[in-house]
């Protein structure tokens, strides 16, 4: 298949400019970039149809090979309509950005920035859990302060009751190595 060098060159330039504009931060330039990309692709589709021939209108004694290939042109028409709709929508978005922010720049995502700034230490997930050995926390009573509380059916000194909640705290004192006798 032979190709048209002019079309290919134009297509290459359109792609290059389109990609350059797409990487800009201004929305209008991004839109222009998208339009150039769409048109470059339309040229590419046109190129795939091969050399231009006769208009594809049926006439009885014409050689089928003499016609232009009509399919790429149908595809281009469809894609032009689609890119028209997208361009109109993008223009709407650009106008809305201008109304809202009085600028035509692409904004950073606020939530992304917030997550990036979050410290790796999360107080709720990573903090040391305060040790709570008793299943039924007793009112804070000093062991030697005296006073009695009702435990079960009998009265007992508060210190005794608190010690009973921590098995082993009084009967076996840990030795220096940390193990119990």
């Amino acid at each position: 298949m032979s190709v048209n060098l002019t079309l290919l060159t134009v297509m290459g330039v359109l792609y290059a400019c389109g990609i350059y504009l797409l990487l800009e931060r201004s929305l209008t330039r991004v839109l222009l970039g998208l339009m150039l990309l769409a048109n470059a692709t339309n040229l590419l589709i046109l190129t795939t149809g091969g050399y231009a021939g006769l208009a594809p209108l049926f006439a009885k004694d014409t050689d089928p090979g003499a016609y232009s290939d009509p399919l790429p042109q149908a595809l281009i028409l469809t894609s032009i309509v689609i890119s028209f709709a997208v361009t109109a929508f993008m223009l709407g978005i650009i106008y809305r950005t201008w109304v809202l922010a009085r600028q035509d720049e692409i904004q950073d995502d606020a939530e992304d920035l917030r997550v990036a700034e979050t410290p790796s230490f999360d107080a709720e997930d990573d903090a040391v859990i305060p040790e709570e050995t008793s299943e039924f926390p007793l009112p804070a009573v000093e062991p030697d302060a005296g006073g009695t509380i009702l435990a079960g059916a009998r009265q007992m000194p508060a210190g005794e009751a608190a010690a009973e909640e921590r098995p082993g705290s009084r009967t076996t004192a840990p030795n220096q190595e940390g193990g119990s006798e």
Partner: protein
Amino acid sequence: MNIASFAPLAVVLPILGAALTFLLIRHSRAQRTVSIALLSLTLLLECWLLASVWEGGTAAVSIGGWLPPWGIVLVVDQFSSLMLVVSSAVSLAVLVYATGQGMADGDSDAPVSIFHPTYLILVAGVSNAFLSGDLFNLYVGFEILLTASYVLMTLGGTGPRIRAGVTYVVVSVVSSVLFLIAIAMIYGATGTINMADLAMKLGDLDQGTRNLLHVLLLVAFGIKAAVFPLSFWLPDSYPTAPAPVTAVFAGLLTKVGVYAIVRTETLLFPGDTFNQPLMVVALLTMVVGILGALAQSDIKRLLSFTLVSHIGYMVFGLAMSSVAGLGAAVFYVAHHITIQTSLFLVTGLIERRAGSSSVDRVAGLAKLSPLLAVLFFIPAMNLAGIPPLSGFLGKLGLLQAGVLLGTPLAYALVAGGVLTSLLTLLAIARVWNRAFWRKPEDAEHPDPVLLAAPGGESQGTGGAGTSSARHTVSLLPRTMVGSTLALVILGVALTVFAGPLFRLSGQSAAEMLDRSSYIHAVLGDEVTVPAPPQPVAQGGGK
């Protein structure tokens, strides 16, 4: 009578509905009735298509009587009809949810009245993409659904939505341009864009050209499906949209991309040329996605990251190109559409009830609204793959297929799959612990609605029953809860009927890998289907 003659109705009915609802733009009640009725009708039609395809095999219809390979064909096979049924069921539930939300908020503003037509156009585009037997028609289907999704994404035109919309629109347009370039090159190389015809002709090209076309299509579809290096746009753009819109996007749009990748891999480019790279990509998608989810505090963003991560499972199943792997992937797609959508719908309810979707601010919901807790808990456990739910069955199928394959890379993927499943559980459990089990007083800046709830902790639970029930009705409208409940039940039903569904996905996988029924349905029984190239084949175009 060819049953596929009714297939175009799956596209035409929603478009008709869109036209009618656009005419009825001032009558919101009629709009609701028309759109729900037409979507239900579409769902019934698709169920019937699925049933008849299951019995009668693949069928195709040429639009307007233009014969393939020149005209446009719509093809109904087991995979596409299963996708149609699941997607329509999910979109119907989301539509009911959205109308419930609209009625509860009582707003009849102009932007909301275009919701119905746009939504129906979206459904039409999804159906068209699933049915298309022609690459350019697939492109048109994508464009229909994408253009509708641009409008839905920026509904209301608030600042954050416009910002998210820009990312989404630009990325989608670039992926569409790539797809169009691929179509142009394929047409230049083979002179056809009919998929069945391409399946016959692509094998004759030399290996280098084939690889180029293959990679172009994979990149274009990879952006749409949010496969790892190309998934950056998704968590930035989905969470800002209204809850029902995010739900339907998460459920359907990425899966259309996955569907297109499946078709590319099985029908157009069979064989295992790109299996190794696809497996690596699947592993990275799973692990990187879920690590991203762990860092988030907003439930919607967290779910968007799990969405990206679980796309990896589907690519994993697909990349094995075995009947077991592809069948499990088909099952997983059906499961994931349902589950991910219901999770996003529940998050919408959480946001209504608790005034925020950030796990730092939401707390104590298990006590305030036990129903909401149940609605969240079941799909969440399903997503993490806790037995016996369908997520577990799908993952089990994938892991079994991976072990069956037995290569080192497959074992790495099996390990990665298990790890991702555990990390999903961790991410979900974090949400559960904070939003549902924590006391409201412990939250950061809790919404007053959480603290002022009737029957709060200070008074104990006595007497909270009737008053709290009456109070939650306004916050949780019955239609919204009802449609979410329906989706959750559908998710559970996928578990109950997992046997038949697994058989169906296995059959459809075998059919797709064989290719002959698809090609015969489109091009007639006379053609001889070329055997899929073996790994050692050099390509016949020399």
